[in-house]
């Protein structure tokens, strides 16, 4: 199987702060891969770098066999790489429908078909299509953020802590949707602090600690590993 996304030896700085220290990872087509790690480990920084919002000083990032580490951020999504950013970051002053339209900003296909697909996944959003994003509940905002990313029909979807701040029942629902998207052929790179949930759905996983990858393996292997249990699974 071809490496779909290949991140090789990236170093990312915020001014003098060395946030990502030479990490490499890859995602194969059709996989769910998860990056787990504590607060401040560098998970968000990694995803932002793949999306082109931050730049690495070294190494390379390849997607579908092409270098993307010098592609401007706004040209990434049309290559089939979408991100659901941390904290959702939906457009709070726009309606649900407008938010979804923004997701299809560069897409050449039919916007209404894409929207139908999103509404199929998230019937809740359909009822609320005229509602202003800022007035949605946290769970609905997360669904909107995911729906918005789906509007571009991505080949690879990166999700940054989709379960953050949600009640357990909603977390399960979100993970079900992720599993469902995966079944429909979307490759997934999932960043989570909820290690248990993430490892249970992931094919493979990486553990990030203060800017370095310290462990990697299949979801099952890591879920069984003593180190992961101690640090991330509460014993």
């Amino acid at each position, binding site marked *: 199987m071809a490496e779909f996304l290949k991140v090789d030896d990236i170093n990312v700085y915020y001014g003098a702060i060395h946030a990502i220290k030479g990490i490499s990872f890859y995602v194969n087509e059709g996989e769910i891969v998860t990056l787990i790690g504590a607060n401040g480990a560098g998970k968000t920084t990694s995803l*932002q770098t793949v*999306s*082109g*919002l931050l730049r690495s000083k070294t190494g390379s990032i390849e997607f579908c066999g092409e270098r993307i580490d010098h592609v*401007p*951020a*706004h*040209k*990434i*999504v*049309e290559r089939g790489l*979408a*991100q659901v*950013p941390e*904290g959702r*970051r*939906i*457009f*709070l*002053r*726009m309606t649900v429908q*407008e938010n979804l*339209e*923004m*997701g299809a*900003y*560069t897409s050449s296909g039919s916007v209404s078909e894409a929207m139908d697909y999103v509404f199929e996944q998230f019937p809740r959003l359909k009822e609320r299509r005229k509602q202003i994003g800022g007035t949605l509940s946290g769970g609905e905002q997360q669904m909107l953020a995911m729906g*918005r*990313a789906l509007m*571009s029909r991505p080949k690879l979807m990166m999700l940054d802590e989709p379960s953050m701040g949600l009640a357990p029942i909603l977390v399960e629902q979100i993970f079900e949707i992720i599993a469902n998207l995966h079944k429909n052929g979307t490759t997934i790179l999932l960043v989570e602090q909820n290690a248990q949930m993430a490892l249970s759905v992931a094919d493979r996983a990486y553990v990030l600690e203060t800017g370095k990858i310290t462990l990697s393996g299949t979801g099952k292997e890591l879920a069984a590993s003593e180190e992961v249990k101690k640090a991330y699974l509460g014993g």
Partner: protein
Amino acid sequence: MADFFSQVVNALQLGSIYALVALGYSMVYGIIMLLNFAHGDIIMVGAYATYFAVCQYGLHPLVAVLLAVLISTLLGVLIEKAAYTPLRSAPRLSLLITAIGVSFLLENGAQLLFGADTKSMVKTPLISGTLNLGGVTVSLAAVITIVVSVIAMIALTFLVQKTKLGKAMRAVSEDMGAAQLMGISLNRTISFTFAIGSFLAGIGAVLHVGSYFQASPMMGSMLGLKAFVAAVLGGIGSIPGAMIGGFAIGIVETLVTVAGLSTWKDGVVFAILIVVLLVKPTGILGRPMVEKV
């Protein structure tokens, strides 16, 4: 009664020009958090362009108008590209200082090139004549100013609310990072915002010359400051706010003048600024500053 009506027309005429200029302030602030103090000076350049086109080169007024609006628009985009784009990720204060610098450059440049005196277009007005509205005589220039401004504002509202580019502008103004993840180009969208703002300023310039017949190097500075007050009063960043603020300032100035206190009118406008900043810094329609979580 007729007197009252003609004062209302005066207020609306002045207010619509403030509103057009305030829109540019507000849109630019909304998208890159910059108080673009060079914005008023674009009016000045537009006014000179009109003056030279008509009085110097004898062009048809309509051609002069198109030329002035075009020059204003291009100037706005040029300023953005040359002075502000390189500072995209610099602290906002650097950007503000740069804007003040650009303003000085334009004002002094105009003084150098065109002289410090006021160029008058009284003898060759862009629009002349009067109109009889139900027994009251008003100048055609006033009617055109109000009508054109209202049309421009309706068109702008449509553009921002309904078109793809308008939505991109709103997306960028809310969250640049998220907008880029959607595939929206910051450079293009920000330039477009400056183009629209300066286009409106160009229209404002032409209407100003049409209404008050003059161009001078410093005219943009006071006009720009008052439009800035209008934008703050309406709620900086808000498009309907800029319109309301513009008309409000026009009405206040006219009232002060009618009361026989015309020497006080600038003072009153800046007193409004101080009161707004003290009492409700977000203005009439401004949103409370929400911290991003």
